[in-house]
C-alpha cells in the first residue's frame, strides 16, 4: 500500500520570469516498507522532490502513484516532519499530536485521540511534557513530538525533511536510534523517505541511499546491514569503509564539477 512510484517527474521554479529546472525527468521506485534516504548537496532538488510527494507542489510533468492511487495533493496517507516548525506554536504538545490524529481519523472521538496521542508521546519519551507549549521545549524535544505526531497519524508513508538537521550530535544520535527503533518494531513497517545531507545518518538508517545531483538521481546504493543497527557495529563491518568512500566520492566529485563550472 505504501509503495511510491515516480515516473518522468519534472518540476521547475519560476522566479522573475526565469525558470529554473529543479527536477529533470526523475524516475524512482520505492517499495512498501522500505527506508530510503535521499542525499545530496543543498539545492539538488531533494527537498523539492519531498514537497511534491507531500502534495505541497504539483509537478509540471510526470506522475506519482502511491500504491495504485495517483497523487493529487496533500493527504493524511502521508505524514511529514520538517526541519523546523512542524508543530503549531499555539497548541500544547498533546494538542499538536491530537490535532494530527483527528485530521487523519476524523471519526475518532476526542478522548480516544488523546489517549492515542499520549501513547505515542510516551514512545518518544515526551509524555511528561504533554501540557507544554512548543516554545518551552528544546529543538530535539520538538522533533520528538513531531515524530510522535507523524507516527500517531498512522500514515502509510513518512516523509522526513532533514528532521535532525538542526540538532547537536548527541541529540541527533539519540533521535536516529529512536526513529529506527520505532520504524523497525512498529509491526507493519512504514515506507520512509528521509532527506539528509549527512552520510553517516544515511548509512545508519537507510535500506537504500539515493544520491541526487541538481535535478537528477545519479546513484543508488543498497545498505546491507542487519537491523537494529548500531553505529559501532556498522563501522566495524568490512564494506562500511567502501560504502562511505563511495558516497564521499559522489559528494566530492560533485563539488569538483561545480568548481570546474565556476572556473569556466
Amino acid at each position, binding site marked *: 500500500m505504501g509503495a511510491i512510484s515516480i515516473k518522468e517527474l519534472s518540476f521547475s521554479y519560476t522566479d522573475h520570469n526565469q525558470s529554473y529546472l529543479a527536477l529533470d525527468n526523475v524516475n524512482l521506485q520505492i517499495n512498501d516498507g522500505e527506508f530510503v534516504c535521499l542525499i545530496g548537496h543543498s539545492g539538488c532538488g531533494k527537498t523539492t522532490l519531498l514537497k511534491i510527494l*507531500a502534495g*505541497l507542489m504539483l509537478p509540471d510533468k510526470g506522475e506519482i502513484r502511491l500504491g495504485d492511487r495517483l497523487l493529487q495533493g496533500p493527504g493524511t496517507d502521508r505524514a511529514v516532519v*520538517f526541519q523546523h*516548525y*512542524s508543530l*503549531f506554536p*499555539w*497548541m500544547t504538545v498533546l494538542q499538536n499530536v491530537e490535532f494530527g490524529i483527528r*485530521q487523519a481519523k476524523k471519526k475518532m472521538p476526542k478522548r480516544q485521540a488523546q489517549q492515542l496521542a499520549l501513547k505515542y508521546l510516551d514512545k518518544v519519551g515526551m509524555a511528561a511534557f504533554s501540557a507544554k507549549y512548543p516554545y518551552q521545549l528544546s529543538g530535539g524535544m520538538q522533533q520528538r513530538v513531531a515524530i510522535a505526531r507523524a507516527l500517531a497519524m498512522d500514515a502509510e508513508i513518512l516523509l522526513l525533511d532533514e528532521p535532525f538537521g538542526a540538532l547537536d550530535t548527541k541529540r541527533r544520535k539519540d533521535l536516529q536510534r529512536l526513529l529506527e527503533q520505532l520504524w523497525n518494531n512498529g509491526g507493519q513497517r512504514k515506507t520512509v523517505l528521509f532527506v539528509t545531507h549527512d552520510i553517516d545518518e544515511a548509512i545508519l538508517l537507510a535500506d537504500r541511499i539515493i544520491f541526487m545531483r541538481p535535478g537528477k538521481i545519479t546513484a543508488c546504493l543498497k545498505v546491507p546491514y542487519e537491523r537494529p543497527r548500531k553505529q559501532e557495529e556498522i563501522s566495524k563491518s568490512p564494506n562500511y569503509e567502501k560504502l562511505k568512500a563511495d558516497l564521499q566520492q559522489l559528494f566530492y566529485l560533485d563539488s569538483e564539477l561545480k568548481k570546474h563550472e565556476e572556473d569556466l
Partner: protein
Amino acid sequence: MKKIFNLPFLVAHLLLLILIVTVLQQGQKAVQPNTAFLVGIGLIELLYLYKLWRARSKEKSLKAPSDIVVLVWIFLLIWEITVTQLNIMHPVLVPAPEDVFHVFPTQYRTLLEGVVSSLQLLLIGFFLGLSFGVILGLPVGWIPRLRDVCFPIANVLAPIPPVVFAPYLIAIMPTFRSASALVILLGIFWPTLLGMIIRVGSIDRRILESARVLNVDNRTMVLKILFPYVLPGVVSGLKVSLTTSVIMLTFAEMMGATKGMGFYIINYTHYANYTNVVAGFIVVGVVVTFLNWVVGIVQTKAIKWQ
C-alpha cells in the same frame, strides 16, 4: 532589599508637606472648600505608595514613581500658588484647583452617568468593530479571490477618517447613540480588517505547509490555524484600537450627544465654565488610564504560547 527612603522619596514628601501647608493657607482668591482637593492629593499619595510597594517586590526602579510624583506635586504647587494664593492668572480661563476638585463631590452623579453612558457606547463600538474586522478579515485574507476584491476596496475606504462620516451618520441614524456606536465601529473595523488581511496573507510559510500536509479543510484552516495565528497581533493592537475608539467617541459626543464625557466637556465649554471642563479632562484621563490598564492585563494573560 532595596532602600525605600532614598533621596527622591524624601524630596517627594517634603514637597507634599509644602503643598498641604500652602493649600491650608487662605489665599487671595475666594475658592470652594479645599476638602476635595486635599482628598485628591491624598489619593495620589496613596497610589504613589502602592506603586513604590509594588516596585520594591518586583525588582523595578524605585526612583521612577518618586520622580513622577515630584513632578505632580510641583505642578499642583504652581497651580495652587499662582491661582489661589496669588490670584495672578486669568480668573475665568484658569480655574483654581480647589474649585476643580470640588466639582467631583458635587457633580459626581452627572459625571458618573456620563462615564457609564460613554463606556457603553465605547465597548459596543469597540467590540463590534473588532469582531467584524477579525471575523471578516480571516476568510477575506485566506481566499485569494475575496482578498483581491476586498483589499483594494478596504484600502480606499479605510483612510477616510470616520469622524468625517460622523455628522452624516448622526443625521441618518435613528438615534444618536446608534450613530456614535457606528462611528466607533467604523474607526476600529477598517484598520482591523486591513491588518487581518495583511497578517493572514503574510503567514509564516512553514506553519502554512505544516497545516497543508495535515490536509486541513478551509474551515479548520480558518478556525484552528489562522485565528490562533493572528490573535497575538489583534491583542497587541488593542491599545491602539482603544485609543482610536476613545477619540471617535468623544468626537461623536461633542457633535450632538445629550450625555457622556465628551458632551459634558463641550457643554460646559459653551458656557465658559472651565472649572467643570478641566474636571471633565481629569475624568476622561482617569477613565482612559483605567481602560488601558485593563487592556494591559488582558494582553499579558491572553497569549500563553509565546
